[in-house]
């Protein structure tokens, strides 16, 4: 039991992202309202963004800006250990943009669906489709 707890605590960032991902996936599969599904999809994407951000972190490191990077006294050694890894964070800027764009397209489609069927509940929409 203590093994399990220490395993969860030691890798808590992975547990958080997996939990969030599953919440999102559950919403996509189980929710009836289209907007709830879309929000679930967005939680799913955000979980992966958190995963990436968390893997760039180092204990006791600082932001990756060199204090004396320019100027006459710029000839000191840089220890990579002192700085967090900025690359995953930069990648996630792109992924956030993608996530926002996907959310926008999805909500626009939901509006189109609403205009066609006057409802966002999936079962009611399917019932209307079956009637036709």
């Amino acid at each position, binding site marked *: 039991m203590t093994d399990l707890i220490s395993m969860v605590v030691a890798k808590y960032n992975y547990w958080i992202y997996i939990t969030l991902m599953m919440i999102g*996936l559950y919403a*996509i599969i189980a929710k009836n309202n*289209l907007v709830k*599904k879309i929000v679930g*999809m967005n939680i*799913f*994407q955000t979980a*992966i963004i958190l*995963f*990436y951000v968390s*893997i760039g972190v180092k204990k006791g490191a600082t932001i990756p800006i060199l204090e004396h990077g320019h100027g006459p006294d710029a000839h000191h050694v840089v220890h990579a250990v002192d700085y967090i890894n900025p690359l*995953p964070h930069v*990648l996630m800027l*792109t*992924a956030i943009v*993608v996530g926002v*764009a*996907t959310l926008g*397209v*999805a909500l626009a*489609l*939901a509006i*189109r*669906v609403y205009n*066609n069927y006057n409802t966002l509940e999936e079962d009611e*929409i399917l019932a209307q*489709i079956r009637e036709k």
Partner: protein
Amino acid sequence: MSEQYPALLVVVPLLSALVVSIAGWINKRLCFPIAVAALGVAAWSAVGLLLRVLDEGVIVYKLGGWSPPMGIAYYIDYLNGLVLPVVSIVALLNLIANKKGIEQQFPDKIGPFYTLYLLMVTGLLGIVVTGDAFNLYVLLEIAALTGYGLLAMGEERAPLATLNYLYMGTIGACFYLLGVGYLYIVTGSLNMVDIARLLPPLYQSKAVMAAFIICMVGVWLKMAFFPLHAWLPNAYTYANSAASSLIAPLVTKVMIYVMIRLMLTVFTPEFAFTTLAVSNAIVWLAVIAIVMGAVLALAERNLKKMLTYIVVAEVGYMVGGAWLGNRDGMTGAILHIVNDALMTLCVFMVVGNIVYKVKGYAFEDLQGLFRKMPFTMGALVIGAMSIIGVPPTCGFFSKWYLIVGAISAGHYGFMAALIFSSLVSVVLFFRVFEICFYEPFADHHGHDNHPGGMDEAPVSMVVPLLIVAVILIVVGLYTGDIVNHVIQFAIPETMV
């Protein structure tokens, strides 16, 4: 000039998408020529690249002069050298063929439509040309987001079907991104060649296995591999014909390219086939995909939806062929990317012409079409022959390689599924031909339902279609050259 082909391939459609969207406000007639010119440049660059690859081997193009692994590099080898011309030529021919159809369906949305079309092609070409795993994700989403926009412009049910595709597509892309994240954790690199160099000592690591499987599941979702295919038929059926005849041939095929790229370049075939030891299960899944695709197609009374289930079955062909784990199977899978893109384009363009004239694609709407639209139906016959696998059309040859691969792998289930699906295709298409040969019953309401003369789609739609039909036969006749000069070098020598 020719050194810059890899950049031109992506940059020209991307920038001209902006130009088209501005030109759409000024004068709608400007959009089409700009779009054709942009895709023409892309097709020219793609063919030029293939010729250069044949001449001098693998090309590495450093974007902005930053050398990998820091910068993003484009690698063009025999595998994507073959896929690039297919993608760009299919997109160009489909654009020309659908000019009239787009004007008929959305007279007031011509600018946005061409903009999305060009962005979609940018994304697809970028996926194929890039050598960076994260760059691939971004381009994947560019292609997907524009694809949702294009597919949603359709019938009443199109937005809902597209929304379902959007959930699945986003989950697929996220899984791919997650897999790349694991690869990044273990290797610290995003460049495909660099990852491939760093991975072999780590092959026993659980994180690497998880990365591979997660990436594969993501890619399978995107390509509609059988249990994950549910979004495809409705999304493609209810879309407008210009979008479905762009997306149906290209998106699934480009995703198969990504799968093969991951198997052959990022990972090694030994890892995919020996270390993981899941290939047999995946081939069995492909068998189920082929059989279910064929059976579900048989149940449809609607030409376009029937074709979408054939797309699902064809995905099974390629996944199965790639996972057979031998050279013939992989050759068949790569050759089938080319052939299936062309034959799916052919049959979906036929549907586009029928929709343009008849305004429907249910089986009842097809009666008497051989008399009304002989050229379109002639192309359908050639496309159908290719899907069934009748020589000398190209579909026969890739199926031949797949079956040879199945026999040498000892996987008779896959061979049986291929033959079963060919036989079902015979039934499917000859049922359509039979309906198209007979005239509708004369109705008794006094309409002059006289069996008039030809009522063919416009020349600008028929000529590209006939070109595609001829290409199907030409590619079939030159299969030997394609295999011996291109595909043979695309597969690593370690794979026998």
